[in-house]
């Protein structure tokens, strides 16, 4: 564990860590909570947000959306193109016996960070804005189910976005992918409001599958770089 943290700290820039672990989540959390408080206040009765039909659930979606986009953007900064075939970005790592295992551990640590943020930010957004538990008259269990479904969906979609984008050198390609994945995130979010537990189960299964699949695929890609594959 200690070693993994050391690898993670070494392979990622301090500015990356500050932005991704502190600044971006705090900013999104702040904005989301602020908007939630505003929405729940009596002053919002005539406000554009309320009049436009903005709900807590919509704020949840926006919170997830921005978290995913920033995750993708900042991941490009730290690991962009790391899985691109043929460019041999890892020349230095391959000359050390511990290079590839260290990078693999870093990637896994980043996945743990992604999962923690995906769950914590939407949930804390609700807590800070005072709309959890017991918002909108929904039963508590269902509300927890819905929030978890949204969080795990966010983790799944972020994992998909980031993992696929690492196979491209151009950020534009990754952002185009993000455009498509927003629709996927939207589907999970919308379905989560009606069938929270089913969506949670589906998102959890997909997340586990995607995490294992992309982890293995990336390590296989690196191992194959020692051969003509």
């Amino acid at each position, binding site marked *: 564990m200690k070693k993994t943290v050391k690898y993670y700290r070494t392979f990622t820039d301090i500015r990356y860590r500050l932005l991704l672990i502190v600044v971006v989540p705090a900013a999104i959390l702040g904005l989301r909570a602020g908007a939630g408080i505003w929405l729940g206040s009596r002053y919002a009765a005539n406000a554009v947000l309320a009049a436009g039909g903005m709900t807590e659930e919509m704020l949840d979606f926006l919170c997830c959306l921005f978290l995913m986009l920033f995750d993708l953007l900042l991941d490009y900064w730290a690991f962009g193109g790391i899985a691109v075939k043929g460019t041999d970005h890892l020349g230095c790592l391959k000359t*050390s016996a511990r290079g590839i295992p260290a990078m693999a551990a870093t990637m896994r640590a980043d996945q743990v960070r992604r999962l923690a943020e995906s769950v914590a930010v939407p949930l804390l957004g609700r807590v800070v804005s005072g709309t959890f538990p017991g918002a909108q008259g929904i039963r508590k269990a269902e509300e927890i189910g819905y929030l978890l479904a949204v969080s795990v969906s966010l983790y799944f979609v972020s994992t998909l976005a980031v993992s696929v984008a690492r196979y491209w050198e151009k950020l534009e390609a990754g952002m185009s992918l993000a455009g498509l994945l927003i629709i996927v995130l939207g589907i999970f979010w919308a379905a989560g409001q009606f069938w929270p537990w089913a969506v949670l189960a589906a998102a959890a299964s997909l997340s586990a599958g995607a995490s294992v699949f992309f982890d293995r695929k990336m390590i296989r890609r690196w191992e194959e770089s020692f051969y003509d594959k």
Partner: protein
Amino acid sequence: MEFTSVIDGANICKKFKNFTLDIPEFRIPKGFATALVGENGAGKTTLMNILAGVRLDYQGKLEYFDEREQNVEKVKERIGYTAPGLYFMPQWSIRQVEEICGLLFDRFDREKFRDICGKLNIGDGDGKKTVAKLSDGNRMKLMLASVLARETDCLLLDEPASPLDPLMRDGLCQMIREYLESGDGERSVFFSTHNVSDMENVTDYCMILERGRIVEQGFVEELKEKYLLVKGEHCDAEAAKQVLYSFSGSSYGFEGICLAKDLDRLAGMDVKVETATLSQICVAVMKAYTGLQLTA
């Protein structure tokens, strides 16, 4: 000249679609700087990658150091390898490169790394510049700094001189010489190069690789005794052409490389015999084996 070797290879073979690297016997002398020379596509980088353990799909046997270690993973700590291209992630800063090398290699000296970076003027001194923003020459200097800051027993440098300016090439020769001297005969350097003349003053041993085969090798002094530079008058050109190993003529005269054993056959001709440079020898040998049609 007899020597002990730092890396021994036997029956090294790597097949590609249109090319085969095939080296029945291979020895890098210990305690010396060995140059690997060959035209583009001759197999230099493939051989370097095999030796450094970053390419594992080959046939044959390699043994490293006095222990005759066959598992390259066990000796990577003792080998410093640089390669052209994207050796470091482009988004890494110089300071990150330092931290990463410190993490990957036990015997990496951070102070020495900073010292070398300072001497070579890499980045702005604060280490914040990313690899992507460095010029090709500075990237190569950064790679050199990262391997020279480690306690290694062998350096494998793939085309280290190519992106460097003439002044820095001279500096590179000096660094290689200092590295060898600091090892008291225990350290070795194996580098590939197209800039034979710039690297000649640091080269002790030379291997010439053509179309995947080593066609000539030996200590530079031995090669210079074997291959001689001959210059003569235009009137003797046709007769000399039959004897010389390589030949280039003009309306004024000719010059070429002659094998020392064939020198007697030039008797009676008005020729001048000089010591050839390593570069001239390499070009002559490469011309003799190349598949390229260099003249119309």
